[in-house]
């Protein structure tokens, strides 16, 4: 279990975290969301015992990360956002290095994370810096799991990872959860956030939301519409949306535009096309929350 109580952190005059509290139960996945610069990585560094200069309290399985960092560290697997691997060591050597640092056996990875390790099977003799971005991330997770931690901290583990490999990683994260591991994971892929048990949404160092994806979606305040639109039609459609009374915001959505509206908009066609009402997803919530709350930097 991870418990954070009123965590505050300053960098000079900049307040990176302004009193963040939450809890990750055993066997729970909490997705950490927020714009770039919201304070996510700062929070990870604090929980991983790397940064002890903060106010508030953080406990890992009951161990205070500031007063008992060694006990906390033994229970944490951490994959930082920046690559944590040694580029000039091979895949196997990286794993052996991390196993050695924790005083455990590298071979144990075959039972701890069979799927991820197997997917690296053809590359075990490759130097880590010659691997593709997705492979590096899989190896970094294996290195963080080798000592069988009960808490996993993953800072954007799927950046640069292709869609199929992302799916594989999440399958593995789900297996770990089912074994009772607490997982705190940040991501910008909002389809992934929907797979978590709870979402912690940080904005400029403050908690905007901490709830289950279902509750968050249910509390969406607007009507949401989708309007099919090709890239070439964008300027024309955006102009029409800007001029339409009742339309609040609009944004790109794959082969369409999504737009939010209040009750005064009656679903009238725009540029001769009829918008269809759609159910919001986590990404719609994210955009809405940020657009209404975003300030400069």
């Amino acid at each position, binding site marked *: 279990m991870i418990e954070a109580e009123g965590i505050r952190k300053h960098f000079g005059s900049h307040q990176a975290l302004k009193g963040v509290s939450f809890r990750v139960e055993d066997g729970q996945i909490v997705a950490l969301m927020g714009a770039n610069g919201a304070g996510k990585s700062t929070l990870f560094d604090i929980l991983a015992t790397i940064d002890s200069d903060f106010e508030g309290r953080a406990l890992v399985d009951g161990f205070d990360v500031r007063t008992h960092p060694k006990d906390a560290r033994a229970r944490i697997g951490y994959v930082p956002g920046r690559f944590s691997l040694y580029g000039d060591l091979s895949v196997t050597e990286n794993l052996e290095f991390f196993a050695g640092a924790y005083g455990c056996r590298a071979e144990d990875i075959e039972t701890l994370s069979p799927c991820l390790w197997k997917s690296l099977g053809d590359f075990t003799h490759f130097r880590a810096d010659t691997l593709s971005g997705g492979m590096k991330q899989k190896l970094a997770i294996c290195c963080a799991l080798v000592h069988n931690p009960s808490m996993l901290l993953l800072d954007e583990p799927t950046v640069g990872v292709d869609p199929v490999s992302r799916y594989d990683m999440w399958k593995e994260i789900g297996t770990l959860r089912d074994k009772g591991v607490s997982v705190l994971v940040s991501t910008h892929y909002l389809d992934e956030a929907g797979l978590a048990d709870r979402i912690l949404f940080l904005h400029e160092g403050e908690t905007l939301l901490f709830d289950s994806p279902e509750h968050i979606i249910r509390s969406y305040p607007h009507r949401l519409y989708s309007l099919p639109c090709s890239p070439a039609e964008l*300027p024309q459609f955006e102009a029409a949306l800007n001029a339409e009374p009742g339309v609040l915001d609009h944004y790109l959505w794959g082969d369409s535009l999504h737009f939010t509206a209040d009750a005064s908009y009656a679903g009238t066609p725009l540029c001769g096309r009829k918008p269809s009402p759609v159910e919001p997803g986590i990404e719609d919530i994210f955009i809405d929350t940020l657009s209404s709350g975003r300030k400069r930097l």
Partner: protein
Amino acid sequence: MKLVEISHVSKRFGKFLAVDDVTLDLSGGEILGLLGANGAGKTTLIRMVCDLIRPDGGQIAVTGRPGYMCQTFSLVEELTVHENIRFYATLYGLGRQTVAEREESIVASLELGPYRDRQVKFLPSGWRQALSFSIAVIADPPVLILDEPTSGLDSLSRRRLWKMIHAKAAEGTGVIVSTHYLDEAFYCSRLAIMNSGRIVAGGAPKDVASTQQDLLGFFR
């Protein structure tokens, strides 16, 4: 007129065939999306178009010097916003007057005024990528090449960057962009999907796949 013509290009690293007989072209105003699994050969192909590595076989013809934004941040982390703009603009051979004008327009459009003298390593990644993009197009290249420009960006920053890409294409710039966000495939005018070094599908996004889920099939 074609701005980029790639014909029967291959590249090998030791025994590994990274790019296998690829033929592609790019016209002005087009946004060509490169999709594919990690290791499919996207970055290798992009690096050959930028003339950073030589193909083992085939030919590549590119009009002018492409603007290039690579996966790892292409800014000098220790330098400020102002210094990065000056540094790259000078490398591209822009005159003093032009550099000053371009800097003003970048700072104004990205609203970076208060952060002009901040080291770029202290900028959030959304702003860094937007700055990186602005620097890649600072010398008005006819061709713009973006390798996973939206990796690690939040939903709003990602959409802001795509607006910048669309604006450049509307001016006639030819754009090649790789991405792992399947929704972004539909922001392109044409797709080329790579698997094991080859182009396995191509065409207008709607002709290649009607949904994001369908696109996934090409990755397996």
